[in-house]
């Protein structure tokens, strides 16, 4: 019983990490149909910049804020320098650009920072919280809270604000969006900035748990991508649920079946879900008449 609870705690912690990464994908995807494979690098930047700023003597909150702002700037730069100039390119080419960007950012981080692993102090100490024989670290609660907060923010953004709708319109039909007066370039800039900021925030929150080094981005992006697809790409609800589900799947498999094949089981479940729901759990099938 307390084992089960422990597995759930573990799954929720890891799941919240995935969810945060997955949430970061949604905005850019919703604005441009591009899955930004450099999203993991923004998470990494969030962690790394905070670590180094903190080491340089900045108080943690300030360092974190700086990291988020810097990463957002990086996102905007990515859009302006690489995505915007290739606007007319097919989506695969844009994806290759984001992969190129992820390699580039990683290389730059390696030069600017270092190749070592780093950790941030936990925000509220390391004393585990005990609940019915199972334990959870306070930092896990921070991560989960962060995931939920970002989710609510995004959900409100897309369902309640005109700008949110404009983002969706931009991806749906860029020409038409311009015809109704939407500055699609600005929408793209905004999306990349926001996505990167969310990624960096994720990085700040998870670094005390997962540690950070210049090359943690790939693995995070991969899991975040899988989680987003499981939940349905572009939908904040899907990202949150997909992330938590993926985390729980992994921890349950590790706990009850085999730790060696936990990633395998997770992917098999994703395949099974997609088999029944080809758009993920919350994804909507686009309606296109012929």
């Amino acid at each position, binding site marked *: 019983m307390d084992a089960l609870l422990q597995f759930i705690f573990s799954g929720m912690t890891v799941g919240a990490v995935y969810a945060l990464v997955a949430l970061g994908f949604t905005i850019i995807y919703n604005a441009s149909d591009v899955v930004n494979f450099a999203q993991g690098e923004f998470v990494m930047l969030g962690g790394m910049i905070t670590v180094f700023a903190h080491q340089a003597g900045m108080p943690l909150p300030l360092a974190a804020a700086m990291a988020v702002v810097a990463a957002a700037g990086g996102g905007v730069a990515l859009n302006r320098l690489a995505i915007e100039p290739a606007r007319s390119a097919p989506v695969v080419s844009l994806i*290759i650009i984001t992969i190129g960007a992820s*390699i580039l950012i990683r290389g730059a981080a390696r030069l600017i920072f270092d190749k070592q692993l780093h950790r941030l102090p936990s925000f509220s100490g390391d004393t585990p919280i005990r609940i019915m024989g199972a334990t959870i670290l306070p930092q896990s609660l921070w991560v989960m809270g962060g995931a939920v907060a970002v989710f609510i923010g995004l959900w409100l953004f897309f369902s309640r604000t005109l700008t949110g709708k404009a983002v969706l319109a931009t991806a749906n039909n860029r020409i038409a969006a311009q015809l109704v007066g939407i500055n699609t370039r600005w929408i793209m800039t905004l999306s990349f900035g926001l996505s990167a900021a969310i990624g960096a925030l994720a990085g700040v929150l998870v670094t005390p748990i997962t540690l950070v080094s210049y090359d943690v981005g790939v693995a995070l992006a991969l899991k975040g991508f899988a989680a987003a697809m499981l939940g349905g790409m572009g939908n904040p609800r899907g990202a949150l649920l997909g992330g938590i589900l993926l985390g729980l799947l992994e921890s349950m498999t590790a706990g009850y079946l085999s730790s060696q094949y936990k990633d395998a089981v997770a992917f098999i479940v994703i395949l099974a879900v997609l088999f029944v729901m080809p758009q993920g759990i919350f994804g909507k099938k686009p309606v296109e008449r012929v």
Partner: protein
Amino acid sequence: MTAARGKWLQLAVLAIVIAALPLIFPSGYYYRVGALIFVNALSVVGLVILIGLAGQISLGHAGFAGIGAYACALAPAHLGLHPGLALVLGAVVSGLLALLIGRPILRLKGYYLAVATLGFGILVSMVLTNERALTGGPDGMAVEDIGLRPLLRDLGWRISGGEFWYGISGIALLIGAWMALNLLDSPTGRAMRALHGSEVAASTVGIDVARQKLRAFVISAVYASVAGSLLALQNGFVTPDIAGFMHSIEMVTMAVLGGVGSVIGAVLGAAILTLLPQVLTVFAEYEQLVLGAVMIIVMIFMPQGLLPSIMRRIRGRGE
């Protein structure tokens, strides 16, 4: 008519390049790099059929390369099969597996297909990594020599391992390119391109969309598998990296960089991504930086990929 001429022209250029390059090779190392380019290009040609022609993405094709490679390692070791035959066995297994998983997976579209294929690739690499008793685990295992070189030696033809594999890979690439070019301008190729354009319209003109997608998937899987086998055979060992996610991404990148719809583009893409790290050893620290920048710049200035964009430019000047 022009398409047919284009085909032979492309093949001739490729053949001449493969045959003539060794004339300027200063050392045996260049044979190795050449062979690597050809093997990579072979698997990318397969992806050109899948991505460029049929419009289906795969982020798991390294899985098939892994199957081909490990077939050449495992079949001789455990079944006593000749490594050459193991290559065929690997191709058959890959093809059958693609046939089996292709049906359900190819119902998915876009990113959903991407994540499903990615999952497949990860499953393969995970089995290869975890089943240590069989596969040697992350450290990999040795692959028997194919035994052709001693045979040639007995026939009085002495060539180094590097030269031998350069030749074999070059010939394999030529055959693969020839078949892909045939397909491109064939009814099947047209059907694949059609479903890429509009699945609904394709099906109303009588194209069995699911079947054509499956064909593309199986064909590309076999290409990847053969390429994986050739790589394993020339390396003399194999590790699970060959089936890894990064390898899949690398294959797709090569395809897109070269120009996803063209066979020669595939060779170019493979050449660039194979050569770049070799060239960049000079600035080791900046390798990733430059590699990433090159990818971005190529895609910005040649959004259709290298070859199509270059051709367009050449034609543009001609007119």
